[in-house]
Each structure stands twice: as C-alpha cells, then as structure tokens.
C-alpha cells in the first residue's frame, strides 16, 4: 500500500478503521478534534457508527456498552477528558473488556494548556481510576508508530480483554508525516463468547458484563485473576527500543516525541566525545524495567538521565528500574515547552563534568 502524507490525528483514526474498528464515541477537545471529525466522515463509509456523546464520561460508557456487546470500539480525548473517563476505564478493566483509548496529551493540571505535554504518564500507568487494575499503554514517537500501535492495540485488547491506551501528544496529533497501513503480525484471537448479543443461543452462558463482586473472596479471586493476566502481558508485550547503548556511558530515558529530540542531541553529544545512548520505552505499561536493570548493572555506565515534558513522572519508574545502582538525573520542561536538543547536550556535559 502506498505511503500517504497524513496528519497524526487522522492517521490514528484511519488506522483504527483499518484494524476493523466500526464504533467510535467521543467528544471534542483540543488537540484531538480531528479524530472524531475524521471518524464522523469515514465510519459511515465503512458501515460503522460514529456518535458524538454529550461528554467524555458518556463516551467512555458508550464504549463500555459497545465493547460488552462484542464490538471493536474506540474513543479519544485529551488530558482533562481522559480524567473524566477514569471511572469508566476502571469499569472496563474490571469487566475485562477490550477497547482502544487515545490520549493526545496537553498541558495540565486543570484546564492547563493546549500545547503538548507528557504529564499524563502517572494517569495512564498508575491506575488513573480506582482499584487494582492496569491498562496497556503504548507510546508512539512518530505517526507511523502511532498507526502501527493503534492497529496492534486492537489485537492486544481483544487477546487479553484489556483497555489499550495510546499515549500521544499534541505534536503527534497535529503534525503530518508519511504513513502506510500494514496489518500487524497475526495473533490467535479467542472468539468473544462472553459478549452480550441477545441470549438466543442457550448453548452459551447468559452474558453478564459486570465488575461488581460483593463477596470479598469473590472479589479477591477476580483481582488475582486480573493480576495473573497482567503478569502474562508483562512477559509477552513489553517493548523497548535501545539506541547507541553498546558503548554508552550516559543513558537517556525518553519516550514519545521527546525521544526524537534526544536522538538529535545524541548525535551532537557524540561529536563532542560524550558517549551517550537512549533507552526508549515503547510500552509504558508494561514498563521495560529489565532494560534499565541490565543497563545499570553494566560497569561502563556512569549515570542515567530522564528527559520528559513533565515534572518527572516516567523518571520515577526509571529510578525504580535502576534501583540505586547509578545516579539518575532529570531534565524537563512543562507548560507545553519542548526541551531543545542543545539543552539535552548541555545537561550531558554537566553530568560528565560531575555537576
């Protein structure tokens, strides 16, 4: 299939349709409005259903209904709207339903700003909603990667019966890059015999889409089942990119669009004799702790540096992975400001000079 120049938001929407998503429920919020708008035009063309809900809360509950009814369904929003969806996401995770949720992160907290940020890492990976649950969090660094992650995301969601969140940002949403739509590697997906379709076939049990278990032992058993599932996902689905790590003395941890700034900085740094490399988590949950543990254990590695558009959220998981073996520094900008490659190189210089 030919490569096409597309805006990130539209490419993400098209990727969902290519993956067989036929239901989208969403609500306008900057900087992701092109997603519902694209879905409004395209879904009827493929016999699907687009509905603009009255709020992000309503939208996530429509997703819960449609997913429980057996459909491939997606919603999208940006930071404040994702906050509104948290109860619904907890319900979807608790009922073991699949869906894809897209967050084009903007500045926060509160009404914040409309420029990109990485300040929803905690919200995405540390629950966000109530209860002991996890969702798979995928962090694209380019529009092509966003497309690939959305398409594979629907399969991951169906395979494990879990919500999958694409953690993008306003840059991914708004910029244009060439993309192509290739189907992901084939997975053996189980049939959705648990879905509510009307109980005409009495050979299957009556479908009850539910997360309420009032008996403590039943609820604990349910939670243990979820934890077992999360362990399996962590074993099978963790993805990370390692770049220029072999001889690196200084290792930068960065994800999403910031990793591209870091790549530019690495070229600069190496030309100055600073041997730096990059560990780029592609799944934020499950987090590639092993990559950091292994790197921290290497004698030649002096220190780590997390670079994020936040006050230091993934930074905490990097520190956990390094587990005190080496120092972990931090460089961040907030409010929608993007660290420049030069500022990353400057930080590496400081680290090399022992500051």
């Amino acid at each position, binding site marked *: 299939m030919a490569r096409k120049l597309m805006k990130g938001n539209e490419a993400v929407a098209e990727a969902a349709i290519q993956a067989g998503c036929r239901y989208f429920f969403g609500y306008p919020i900057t900087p992701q409005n092109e997603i519902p708008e694209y879905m409004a035009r395209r879904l009827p063309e493929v016999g699907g259903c687009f*509905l603009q809900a009255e709020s992000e809360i309503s939208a996530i*509950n*429509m997703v*819960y*209904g449609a997913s429980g009814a057996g*459909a491939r369904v997606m919603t999208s929003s940006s930071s404040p709207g994702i906050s509104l969806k948290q109860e619904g996401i907890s319900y979807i995770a608790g009922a073991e339903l699949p869906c894809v949720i897209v967050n084009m992160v903007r500045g926060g907290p509160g009404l914040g700003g409309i420029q990109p940020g990485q300040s929803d890492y905690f919200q995405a990976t540390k629950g966000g909603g109530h209860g002991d649950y996890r969702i798979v969090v995928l962090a694209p660094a380019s529009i092509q990667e966003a497309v690939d992650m959305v398409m594979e995301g629907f399969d991951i969601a169906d395979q494990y019966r879990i919500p999958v969140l694409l953690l993008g940002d306003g840059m991914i949403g708004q910029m244009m890059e060439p993309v192509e739509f290739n189907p992901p590697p084939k997975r053996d997906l189980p049939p959705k015999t648990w879905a509510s379709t009307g109980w005409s076939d009495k050979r299957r049990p009556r479908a009850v889409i*539910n997360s309420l278990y009032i008996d403590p032992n039943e609820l604990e058993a349910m939670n243990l089942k979820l934890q077992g599932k999360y362990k399996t996902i962590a074993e099978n689905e963790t993805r990370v990119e390692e770049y220029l790590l072999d001889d690196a003395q200084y290792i930068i941890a960065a994800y999403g669009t910031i990793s591209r700034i870091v790549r530019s900085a690495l070229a600069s740094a190496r030309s100055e004799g600073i041997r730096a490399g990059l560990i780029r988590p592609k799944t934020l949950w499950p987090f590639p702790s092993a990559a950091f543990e292994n790197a921290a254990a290497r004698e030649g590695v002096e220190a780590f540096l997390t670079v994020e558009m936040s006050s230091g959220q993934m930074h905490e998981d990097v520190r956990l992975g390094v587990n005190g073996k080496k120092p972990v520094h931090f460089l961040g900008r907030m409010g929608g400001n993007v660290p420049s490659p030069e500022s990353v190189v400057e930080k590496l210089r400081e680290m090399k000079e022992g500051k």
Partner: protein
Amino acid sequence: MEKVFKKTSMLTDKIFHYCPGCTHGIIHRLVAEALEELGVGDRAIGVAPVGCAVFAYEYFNCDMHEAAHGRAPAVATGIKRVHPDAVVFTYQGDGDLAAIGMAEIVHAAARGEKITTIFVNNAIYGMTGGQMAPTTLVGQKTTTAPDGRLASHCGYPVRVSELLATLDGAAYIERVSMHDVANVMRAKKAIKKAFECQIERRGFALVEVLSSCPTNWGLSPKEALEYLRDAMVPCYPLGVKKEV
C-alpha cells in the same frame, strides 16, 4: 384447572433481595412479563443501575450489563448501536437517572435512542440509606434533609417525564404508579407499549413508575402505598406525556 398466573420465564429463580413490600419486585416482574409476552426475551439486553436494583443482572433472564451510576443510557446507546435489533432496556432509580445521570438520559432521549427506560421513582435514595433525591417532595424527611426538604434551600422535585416529553426524540413517555391493582395493571400496559415503541423503531421510550420505599420512608408496606397515592401522585400526575 389450568394455571392462569405463574412466574414468568424472563425472571430467574433467585429470590429478590428487596425489602418486604418494595415495589421493585412488582416492577421487575412487569418488565419480565412484557418481554416474554412480546416474544423478545432472546434478544433482550438489559442495563442495571447503581441503586437498590444493582443486582438486577441476577434477576432478569437475559443478557445484562452492569453500569456505572447514572451512565446506563450511555451504556445502552453503545449496545443498541452495535445490535440495532436487540431490545435494549435500562432500569434506573431516581438518583441514578435524575441526579448523576441527568445528562445521559436527556441526551439519549434527545438523540431518539431506540431504547426503553424503566424509571423507578421512589423520591429517595434507597440503597445508600435514605438520602434526599432530586425527586424528594418538599417537606419530605430524608437523612440529608432531616427537617424535611426546604424549597428555599434546596429547591423542588424534578418531574422527569414532563421534562423529557419536551424533546423531539422522545416517542413515548408515561407516568404510572404502583399503589393498587388497577394501577399495577395500567403500569404493565405502559411498559409493554414502551417496549413496542422500541420494536417499532419509533424512538426513545420511558415509563416513570412511582414506587414505594417502606424502609426509608419509615412506613409499613400498606402505609407506603397510601403515601404513594396521597402524596406522590398529586406531585407527579399520572398519564401519557408523549406519544408519537
């Protein structure tokens, strides 16, 4: 002799957890009977609320979803858009529908979602122990208005049926009551019509069922039905509010 009245197959055998004399039990039965008599039991998908009827998924003998508080109309929308031929219903109390869920029910009705909502109005929050509801009567005592609802402080009850009847997407809205046999039979007719409205794809249908809460009203089952007849019905007039 032949059986002229027995439990419908659209209810499971599980004994209801509702309080003695609570009209939820009657309303569950009427909904289940309507589904059976209309022959749509095997394509029914119900959405249970948060409230006393939170376990409704254990009682209705069809595919069921549990929903977050207030969100049942949105959940039902998702289900109905995926399965347009299913008979999708929500069963909601007054806190679920008229407080936290007011946006969802208004917009489901405005969109003309072809779902059927059974709205159980007992003017109080039952499950959580008797707090004030948007439908609590002025002067009615509740745990969060211990001296009785004071209009100057927290306003007036909401007449949901009249409110929704103003929306063009609403195709059938009727208010009924549980206070005696004739009204129970009228309620059953209304519930059947509300399902027929969906089956005929005319639009959104809602039946508001004035119900009793003996436990939280502090009345016996008999006294509770009398309060229903003498206090609730004058505030919430019975009858068809919309029919297209």
